């Protein structure tokens, strides 16, 4: 770890404990520290911890602007969420804000819990009406992958989901079906649903597991765990039961051990025998990946590693299956790709889509396409290392 990274974790730890940070002006390069915080989307928290330290003027400006930006985005997105929620209620549409909108409430200063977007769950049958409401509020629809529709308006991104979890992890659990129960036992305020906090927390753990499997994710997810434990007054027996049901208990133990290591807190349970080398490896990777994960060679093999772990067949057979999948992507995947949207609702057009895709790749992306097809064979060592990494996480 660099000096700035060490200091960054120390400042987060001080924030978790709500204690003053003993930092001096010449302790570090504050520009580099700000860069670390920016990559983790936690500049506002660092401003709060450093607000009384006599920093160089440029650093003060950077941290202060980060704080003001976090505050503005938080208040603005809450305001717009309430406006949209009123319209959903007016149209009798049940909606359930989740992830950051709920997790931020456990923070000492909810506005400092940043969010890349606001996530709202709706029922599938309300999709068209919600689309109209979002557009009436000036949002443009950016991406439509069926399960989540993404809307943008001047600094604000809203994701409207009709399925809460739509990806597999490296085990045989059907997370999509499991989290459909989020609507049950939710508290209802007008048409706004507030999910059971224990189930929602377990959902966020599954979400963290998904990012860990794919492109990685930042320290904010772990701050969420700590503040949830400190402030949500949750039933941890229930949470343990849920985590075991969906095979994420071991993963949670590892996450909590990391929280204890980084922030000096006591979590409800943890890995009794954590591997120090693995914990250092994870720490370095999280700094490398940043808040939303990173597209890197290391992470690119994540998908293949996951599929090989999921499969009950041997490596060679699964690798062959992966290659066939890349050559003949199923209708389920193709219909979600914007430039193949012409197959949506017309699965009989799939052979034409495959031929078009092969032709396009041969002409425009020959090397990239070949590398992708050969990945399970050429990068076997990297994939197996990634599998081992997932194994250590308990995934």
């Amino acid at each position, binding site marked *: 770890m660099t000096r700035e990274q060490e200091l960054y974790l120390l400042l987060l730890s001080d924030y978790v404990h709500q204690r003053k940070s003993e930092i001096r002006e010449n302790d570090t390069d504050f520009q580099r520290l700000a860069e670390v915080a920016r990559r983790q989307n936690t500049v506002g928290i660092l401003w709060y911890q450093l607000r009384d330290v006599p920093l160089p003027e440029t650093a003060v400006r950077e941290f202060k602007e980060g704080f003001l930006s976090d505050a*503005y985005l938080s*208040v603005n997105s809450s305001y717009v969420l309430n406006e949209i929620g009123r319209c959903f209620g007016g149209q009798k549409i049940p909606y359930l804000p989740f992830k950051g909108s709920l997790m931020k409430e456990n923070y000492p200063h909810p506005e400092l819990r940043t969010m890349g977007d606001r996530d709202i769950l709706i029922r599938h049958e309300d999709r068209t009406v919600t689309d109209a409401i979002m557009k009436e509020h000036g949002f443009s629809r950016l991406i439509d992958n069926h399960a989540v529709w993404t809307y943008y308006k001047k600094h604000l991104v809203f994701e409207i989901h009709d399925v809460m979890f739509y990806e597999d992890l490296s085990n045989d659990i059907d997370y999509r079906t499991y989290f459909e129960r989020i609507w049950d036992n939710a508290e209802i305020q007008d048409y706004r649903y507030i999910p059971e906090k224990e189930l929602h927390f377990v959902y966020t753990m599954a979400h963290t597991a998904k990012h860990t499997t794919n492109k990685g994710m930042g320290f904010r997810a772990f701050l969420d765990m700590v503040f949830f434990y400190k402030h949500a007054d949750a039933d941890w027996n229930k949470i343990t039961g849920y985590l075991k049901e969906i095979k994420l208990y071991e993963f949670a133990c590892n996450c909590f051990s990391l929280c204890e290591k980084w922030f000096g807190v006591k979590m409800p349970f943890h890995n009794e025998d954590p591997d120090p080398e693995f914990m250092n490896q994870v720490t370095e990777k999280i700094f490398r990946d940043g808040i939303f994960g990173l597209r890197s060679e290391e992470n690119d093999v994540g998908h293949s590693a996951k599929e090989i772990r999921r499969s009950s067949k041997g490596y060679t057979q699964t690798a062959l299956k992966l290659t066939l999948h890349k050559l003949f992507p199923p209708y389920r995947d193709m219909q979600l790709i914007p430039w193949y949207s012409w197959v949506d609702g017309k699965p009989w057009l799939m052979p034409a889509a495959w031929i078009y895709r092969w032709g396009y790749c041969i002409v425009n992306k020959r090397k990239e396409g070949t590398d992708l097809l050969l990945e399970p064979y050429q990068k076997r060592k990297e994939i197996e290392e990634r599998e081992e990494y997932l194994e250590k996480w308990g995934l």
Partner: protein
Amino acid sequence: MKIRDGIVLKNICGTWLLIAAGETSEHCKYVREVNDTFAWYWKEIEQGRTKEEIVADTLERFDVSEELVRSDIEEYIRSLYAMNYLIKEETK
């Protein structure tokens, strides 16, 4: 005088911020740091107090001269109009 819809005064981490939420950011600065006195006057306006009532409330709460309060409030209200935070009711 009327506060434009979408302007939110909030104390975050001990700092008073005036935030232009929703469509209001078309007309006002996104976020402005303000001091305690500003926040006090703002809350008075939010509660629908007239200029005279704000003067009376301020004199009752703080140990300052009426002359100073009057000139302070007039300047304050003028600046709020200039910054588009206040609008005349009929043009809302």
